[in-house]
């Protein structure tokens, strides 16, 4: 017989893990809360550092899940542990007997309106990184009207204990630099400013991206967090920050302000976690069993974690994490259900 593996969350991690497990000869059931697979990737336009199309990336991920049973608009209703496996009842009425569960519940974007001083949802010309990606995808946004001066605020809801998130969201700096360059491409005679606390660009090619942003696009990087935004009589924005390099307070009027909303643990993911009594750490992300050693194992047998469910990750990190999880699940099931082995080998010969 085939082992059932339930994957909760149809984002990149879920998709990659399901395709891997499918190839390993498991019966994969993938559920997604929203109406479409792809998670945040489905909403993004281009990806750093090389600027590849998110659409294409998602398409290639989707290309490998044939045979995977997936249900969208579906949530976990109840879940309880049997002797070896889990009995899961889905919101669409289907009941799954899962021998292993993989939580790829991902993250929510920080609600930028919570940083009241930035006036997101109050000032007409304040938008978020997600809004900008949407603009790049479908080319129109009433708030973006040929801006001459554009500001990017890094660390919105990241590294900000009062906003409930002490940690760094890892992807915002790179995204900000990418989007700054894209805006410069879209509006060549605009001045673009990036307000950062620390530039956390450490991956391969990221430094080239930073250099190119400065040298080729003339983007100005100002070390200092925007602390106050206001609207001028003419509707333009007045932002205040400190240029901590010059150690002087700074004021600028801008036509557009882009907030780099950070990553927060997925609320609905957390709900499923609570059904399983999965422990979370102070930062709100699920805790893993033995930290570094087994990054994808949860403290509960047969329940695994991958992707941003265990903290902010870049897309490559997430995919690698998903593959690792697939391997771990395979090991686990091979140990718990030795009899299924020969069948798996049969399937693997097919590939």
């Amino acid at each position, binding site marked *: 017989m085939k082992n059932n593996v339930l994957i909760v969350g149809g984002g990149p991690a879920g998709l990659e893990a399901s395709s891997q497990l499918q190839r390993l000869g498991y019966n994969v059931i993938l559920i997604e809360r929203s109406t479409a697979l792809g998670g945040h990737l489905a909403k993004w336009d281009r990806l750093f550092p090389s600027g590849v199309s998110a659409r294409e990336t998602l398409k290639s991920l989707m290309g490998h899940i044939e045979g995977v049973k997936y249900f969208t608009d579906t949530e976990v209703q109840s879940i309880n542990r049997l002797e070896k496996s889990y009995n899961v009842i889905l919101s669409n009425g289907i009941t799954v007997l899962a021998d292993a569960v993989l939580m790829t519940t991902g993250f929510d974007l920080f609600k930028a*309106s919570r940083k009241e001083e930035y006036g997101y*949802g109050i000032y007409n010309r304040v938008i978020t990184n997600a809004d900008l990606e949407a603009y790049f995808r479908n080319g129109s946004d009433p708030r973006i009207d040929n801006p001459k001066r554009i500001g990017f605020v890094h660390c919105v809801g990241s590294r900000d204990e009062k906003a409930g998130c002490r940690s760094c969201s890892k992807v915002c700096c790179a995204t900000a630099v990418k989007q700054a360059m894209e805006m410069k491409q879209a509006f060549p005679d605009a001045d673009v400013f990036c307000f950062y606390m620390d530039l956390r660009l450490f991956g391969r090619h990221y430094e080239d991206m930073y250099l190119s942003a400065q040298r080729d696009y003339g983007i100005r990087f100002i070390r200092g967090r925007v602390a106050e935004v*206001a609207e001028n009589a003419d509707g333009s924005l007045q932002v205040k920050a400190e240029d901590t390099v010059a150690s002087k307070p700074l004021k600028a009027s801008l036509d557009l302000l882009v907030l780099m909303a950070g990553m927060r643990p997925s609320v609905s993911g957390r709900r499923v976690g609570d059904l399983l009594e999965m422990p979370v750490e102070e930062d709100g992300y699920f805790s893993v069993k033995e930290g570094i050693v087994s990054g994808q194992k949860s403290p509960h047998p047969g329940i695994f974690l991958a992707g941003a469910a265990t903290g902010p990750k870049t897309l490559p990190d997430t995919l690698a994490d998903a593959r690792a999880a697939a391997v771990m699940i395979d090991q686990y099931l091979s140990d718990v259900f030795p009899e299924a082995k020969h069948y798996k080998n049969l399937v693997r010969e097919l590939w």
Partner: protein
Amino acid sequence: MIYEGKQKIWADYQKEIPDDHYFYVRSCIRQSFFPASEATFLDITRNRLGKDIFETEHHTTCGGIAYHSDTIPQETVMTIIARQFALMAKNGYENYVCSCITSFGLYCETMETWREFPELEAKIRENLWKTCKLDFAKPKYLIHASDLIYKYRNLIAKQAVHKLVNVHTGQPLKVVEHIGCHYSKMFPSKGVGGAEYPYVLVGMIEAWGGEIVDYPERRHCCGFGFRQYFIKGNRGYSLSNTHKKFESMEPFHPDFIITNCPGCPYFMDRWQYVIAESTGKTYGQDGHGIPVLTYEEVAGLVMGYDPWDLGLQTHQVGVEPLLDKMGIEYDPEKKYQGKGGKDIGRPEPCACLK
């Protein structure tokens, strides 16, 4: 500016305000700066709204000015406050209403500190007993006087004689609202509407027909800043802060400014004179300043009090243009006449400020 966005925030910061029976404590400096304001407050709440407001001559300063000027330690301040609370309890009240924002902030700070460190509260209780043989009970509700006017803004609107509307154009008056820093910047949840977009004064203006303008430096301090003003060497700094605010609000052409703090109206009013006389710059129409009123004064005008009974003659910036806009009748002759028509003297004419 997206109004719905602000409403969302206001919705998050609603505060419970009791209906009646208030223990009222005055502000040290308002009594001398704008003495009529507190009188008007009591008159409105007692006689127009029929509320039970108790005050006692035994209450003292909250010690805030000394505290914020680093001249007395926190425990002393707390003991003073404990004594006020004792007075409240002794008179059988549990809703504490203060007229001063500095006090309000300090009371909030103290109560929060006691909540965090109960042992400190016990110590203060002991201090108070040692010093005054008094025991205190913490107020059930701690509110600022402006919260009350906010709460009754619609009742006041019902009794309104005048609206905050330019009777000549029919346009709502443009109003700048200035909230005392210590109202909600320290504890956003303690103020109506929070710290970013406090609603306490906005609510009044909206209820009375005016229109609020948000200008970039609206969050900025009025410039009082305690020792920044007390020490003459720092006064330039105090002045510059006010200047910054006026420079920022100028393009919006406000008709007047409404405030809920003792210091703010005073400094925003008097510094306009200093700026005008030392630099020649004025911010109102043709050489006038922008009138700066307390919320009681505004309420009074709306309810048809005589401007001079509201003490508007004690303002440096002339209020006549505003009164004309609102279509309020006033007798210029009576401007400098006190009770029983006796002359209270006139200020020196200004060179620049009309």
